[in-house]
């Protein structure tokens, strides 16, 4: 296993190991788009009553992955933009009648065998969306064959829901979920990633999974972002040329267990609430669509907060129109917006600033958690070629080089320098003394290159079809 770069940022507000259930909501706001999905095909009508587990919408570009109703209630469409609102949430938690859809499962079973039917079931019960294609980060094809499966219990980005907390709470379900996963595969290995495979907890887990020949335990240092699926896959030598790699986290394995053991829809999620601006950082059990306001009212004390969907490194700030938790949310991070300007800030000894650079007094004391704000902490300058971005980059590319190419609009050179390998971890932007937004630039460039490629394929296909017609 070969790992590069990485760096741990310590800051205040790490979620503790408690999981609190949030009170039942009165209204749910289900966003129709999230990081990977756009549920553009709506399956319900305004005013319609739905049961728990009913399909509200699907994403036609992602193998029709469904957006499930987390509770029974009546649907309101068009009330809030890009959101399905569920009103009059019923207290009882009865499941939708899945008989109709089970026929479809039986049909799939006849065509693709038992494993195919199971995958179909995972998809219909909302568990499939916990899977990622390790290299591209997209939803994997449910009928595809992976070369391997990665199961990671780590979540190293500050602050997303901690896998270890969920694992310790539900170890039995977890091992059963692993078993189910194995039954979906033929002989492909499952890499099970733990921070310390010699720990007591690890040996308990090992006892539980003794019989599973294809599960291999892998140890990973607790350095951000070694838990990133693409970094993991590359360090395990799983190249994207040899087929897809499926990857999922603790919550994914638990969802697989829920769907295949109990046959219940997976609509609850464990999310974290952490960051400098939170009263008591911890974990929350919520359903998707849970009103954001209920959460922030209870936990955020900061007068000028920035509320982020996800962690501080890769998350996006919630827009003013965001009302509910989306189906992919893993945590809410709250940071105070910068308010004060420091007098002669750069001259201070800096014993209270923890930095990647040993240029502050803090480098002589133990690492500590800092109270961070959203301050840029410096001015934007041209790159000074300090190489820090490359040192921390887990993808083994040269961010400064790509930056210089993109600055001059040399997209092809940037592609040759493998900007596509960037896992968008954000460490380069974090350490850069010139405060260059490297990550944002790369995300844009990657999207541009992907779009161009897609367009090229399309024109090519169109040309071919016209040629056919002509012939």
């Amino acid at each position: 296993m070969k790992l590069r770069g990485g760096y741990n940022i310590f800051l205040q507000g790490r979620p503790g190991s408690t999981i609190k259930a949030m009170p039942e909501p009165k209204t749910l706001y289900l966003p129709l788009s999230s990081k990977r999905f756009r549920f553009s095909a709506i399956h319900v009508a305004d005013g319609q009553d739905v049961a728990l587990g009913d399909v509200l919408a699907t994403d036609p570009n992602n193998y029709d992955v469904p957006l499930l109703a987390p509770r029974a209630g009546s649907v309101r469409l068009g009330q809030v933009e890009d959101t399905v609102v569920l009103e009059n949430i019923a207290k009882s938690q009865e499941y939708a009648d899945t008989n109709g859809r089970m026929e479809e499962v039986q049909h799939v079973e006849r065509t693709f065998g038992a494993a195919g039917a199971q995958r179909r079931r995972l998809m219909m019960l909302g568990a499939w969306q916990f899977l990622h294609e390790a290299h591209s980060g997209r939803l994997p094809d449910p009928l595809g064959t992976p070369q391997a499966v990665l199961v990671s219990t780590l979540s190293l980005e500050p602050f997303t829901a901690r896998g270890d907390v969920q694992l310790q709470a539900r170890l039995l379900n977890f091992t059963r979920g692993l078993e189910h996963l194995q039954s979906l595969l033929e002989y492909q290995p499952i890499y099970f990633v733990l921070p310390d495979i010699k720990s007591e907890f690890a040996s308990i887990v090992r006892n539980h999974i003794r019989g599973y020949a294809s599960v291999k335990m892998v140890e990973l240092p607790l350095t951000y972002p070694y838990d990133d699926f693409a970094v993991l896959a590359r360090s395990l030598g799983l190249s994207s040329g040899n087929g897809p790699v499926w990857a999922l986290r603790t919550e994914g394995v638990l969802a697989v267990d829920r769907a295949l053991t109990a046959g219940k829809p997976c609509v609850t999620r464990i999310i974290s609430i952490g960051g400098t601006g939170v009263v008591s950082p911890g974990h929350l059990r919520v359903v998707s669509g849970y009103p954001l306001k209920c959460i922030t009212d209870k936990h955020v004390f900061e007068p000028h907060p920035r509320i982020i969907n996800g962690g501080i490194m890769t998350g996006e700030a919630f827009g003013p129109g965001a009302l509910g938790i989306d189906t992919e949310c893993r945590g809410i991070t709250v940071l105070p917006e910068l308010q004060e300007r420091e007098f002669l800030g750069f001259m201070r000894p800096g014993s209270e600033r923890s930095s990647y650079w040993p240029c502050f007094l803090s480098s002589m004391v133990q690492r500590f958690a800092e109270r961070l704000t959203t301050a840029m902490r410096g001015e934007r300058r041209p790159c000074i070629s300090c190489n820090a971005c490359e040192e921390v980059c887990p993808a083994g590319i040269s961010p400064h080089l790509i930056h210089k190419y993109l600055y001059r609009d040399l997209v092809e050179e940037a592609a040759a320098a493998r900007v596509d390998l960037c896992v968008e971890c954000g460490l380069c932007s974090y350490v850069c003394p010139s405060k260059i937004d490297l990550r944002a630039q790369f995300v844009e460039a990657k999207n541009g290159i992907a779009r161009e490629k897609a367009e090229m394929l399309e024109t090519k296909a169109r040309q071919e079809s016209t040629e056919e017609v002509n012939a």
Partner: protein
Amino acid sequence: MKLLLRVVEKIRPHFEEGGKFHAFLPVYDAIEHFLFAPGTITTTAPHVRDPIDLKRFMSMVIVALLPCVATGIYFFGLRFIALIVVSYAAGLSVEALFSIVRKEPINEGFFVTGFLFPLIMPPAVPLWMVALGVAFGVVIGKELFGGTGRNLFNPALVGRCFLALAYPVQMSGSWLKPGAGVAGRLLQYVDGSNVDAVTSATPLALAKGGEYVSLSHMFVGSVSGSVGETSALAILAGGMFLLLTRVANWRTVASILISFTALAAMLHHAQPDRFGPALWHLCAGGLLFGAFFMATDPVTGPITSGGKWLYGALIGVVTVLIRNFTGYVEGVTFAILLGNIFAPILDEMVFALRLRRLKVEG
């Protein structure tokens, strides 16, 4: 401080778009942000950033130079302070002028250049030459390339190189004998008119005639030479600090010192009476200062580790060659400028190798 901040914020509109002094915004910005950290916030992920910025980065170099400044004043007198003031004044004017024309913020890089430049000057150099040299260095060595970050050459070295070529007589006639006695020249102001103090005999010049100044003098710095370059002790103290803060990369320094020492030792071994001992050469002239403070400038050196090793080796070897086989007594300036030219090429080579390896990955 609250009051000052309020004042600053009140004046600001005059310099902003539509204000009376809008053209001077870069100058105002520099002053404001020197006093108060800017209030910018992140707009994209990552939402938090490291406390390091260029101001801090460059301050580290200035702190590291303080021992050299102290020995400079001790051995060559208070006039050195005038040198620094002139260098800053002249350089900053040029820098500000270019910032105003280009409508770009003033870059912190100059604060290092303005400090480095007087340190590599002969102590009795006329003040107008300091001003001319630093202005030349900043304009030709930096601004023409687009400012700090885009410059090919180390601006301080360009300035010095220019003076050495344009005014060789004045330059070589401006060395001072170091102050003797406990107080050194701490309380003296010595310029070129003081005939007693002026000398033309730097250790390297004397060595051409086969006369070697004692190593202990050169280690402490009580020999004639450029203000900041004589004391190996002070340079090592500051240099170590710079390496520990990782502002200077150890690879460059190590590579220069190793290659230089190795080649000098080989020459000395071959012909002991023609070439001086390696350790003596190491402490003589501007080699240590150049290795720790000039070659390690991240902008003008290579960025890759491989490039740094090659770059250092090039500088070390060329310095030995110039010192021992040409009419020049000192070669560090030329060697580093030559290295600056090669730095992008060395990087290019390393990148080409790396891209070939990356091609098959993922």
